[in-house]
């Protein structure tokens, strides 16, 4: 019933929802949340493989991915705040200082 490929397909769908959010949305915070969603999709793949293969290393890796995601969330949101303080916007179309 719940075979490994079902988990992998759910994970692929979640990953592509996150990727499409990164491509289509303009709001930096929403893009940030979509990146978190993509990280979670990869975590689901890792845990599914880990439990089906009987190898614990995948779960350890997921633990570290969560650690790094927490660090990334803190730093990323701090950057968003300081950008907003400078530019008064979080729309990525208006943050075009690096545009040639």
């Amino acid at each position, binding site marked *: 019933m719940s*075979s490994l490929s079902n988990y992998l*397909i759910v994970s692929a769908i979640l990953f592509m929802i996150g990727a499409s959010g990164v491509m289509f949305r*303009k709001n930096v915070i929403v893009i940030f949340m979509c990146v978190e*969603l993509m990280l979670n999709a990869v975590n689901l793949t890792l845990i599914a493989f880990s439990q089906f293969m009987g190898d614990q290393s995948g779960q350890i890796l997921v633990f570290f991915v969560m650690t790094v995601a927490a660090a990334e969330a*803190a730093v990323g949101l701090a950057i968003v705040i300081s950008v907003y303080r400078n530019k008064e916007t*979080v729309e990525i179309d208006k943050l075009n200082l690096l545009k040639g």
Partner: protein
Amino acid sequence: MVTRKSAVPSALMLIVTFCFLAALYLTLNAQFLAVVQVAVYAGAIMVLVVFVIMLLNIRNEQYTITGNWKTVVGILGVLGILAQIISVFIAATDTLPKHLSESAVQLGTVESVGTKLYTSYAFPFEMASIILIAAAVGAIVLAKKKLT
């Protein structure tokens, strides 16, 4: 969550998604990671995101998903990559393991994950703490108004 105009509903939907993912982890017998998922993702990270949304006082973004050739190309690309990934999974179904391994219940417990984390992976574990401290200091420095 991608289709909402305002950021707050998409944040709340993401929290629900994280809780469902924790349920999926439970079906895989990964109890420890399910609890960590709810505590860290649905708890800590999303609280941070919602706080930043509140701090920034952003308006709804104006975006339309019709007509623009960029969105058409993007949707086609997303669906194409998704179809490719799923077709790879379906093609490899025979080679993938059919059932959860016998030790799956044992592997997901706090005890076994913790033992592995503090023995074989002790050094990466300490590195993770350094990363967290660096991130905390960096976040404070970045978000501060002026360094004195």
